[in-house]
């Protein structure tokens, strides 16, 4: 059973378009992180959200944590080719499990 489901799994868009990636679960998370991973490299932490309803912005990226802390979204405005990569959400369940659970991943390709 996958704790965190991401959608879409694959996304290919033109430069300048907007997009949203979703990360959903039936479990409550005490915190949730978003990472971006480029081919041949390790994941790079983009943001951590902690409070239900929290919104954080990182340049053209907007991250939102659901009110119930069960889901999150990543919105990219005016996508650039440099945004291409594998986007992973990951969270700490509130059940007390110590490990970070990763989502299924969204592979984004931005075409120039």
């Amino acid at each position: 059973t996958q704790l965190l489901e991401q959608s879409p799994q694959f996304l290919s868009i033109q430069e300048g378009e907007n997009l949203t990636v979703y990360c959903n679960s039936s479990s409550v998370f005490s915190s949730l992180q978003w990472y971006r991973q480029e081919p041949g490299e390790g994941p790079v932490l983009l943001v951590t959200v902690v409070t239900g309803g929290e919104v954080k912005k990182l340049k053209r990226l907007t991250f939102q944590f659901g009110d119930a802390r069960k889901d999150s979204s990543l919105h990219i405005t005016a996508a650039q080719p440099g945004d291409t990569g594998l986007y992973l959400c990951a969270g700490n369940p509130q059940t007390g499990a110590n490990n970070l659970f990763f989502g299924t991943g969204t592979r984004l390709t931005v075409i120039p």
Partner: protein
Amino acid sequence: DAMVIQNPRYQVTQFGKPVTLSCSQTLNHNVMYWYQQKSSQAPKLLFHYYDKDFNNEADTPDNFQSRRPNTSFCFLDIRSPGLGDAAMYLCATSRRVSYNEQFFGPGTRLTVL
């Protein structure tokens, strides 16, 4: 800059020949993790160390072992690599286990011939 370093970046080994991957960190974090990542999949946790305490995931094969001789270094030993063990191996660190923002190294891509 503080960082997580993995060596080598690329490792080729033969079927059944033991191999060791290394990870070092300058972040002085308490926790170090080893993940296995296969193509287009999310990283899969193998085990982690909280200081010197070793925590193995239930589904990690016995073929995979780890050592952490000090805070800065952690090793992944694959005793008898099989073809199915070819993957990217990622090392990560965090300050503590709960509410853990993890910082990843660049990974070691293992090829098994």
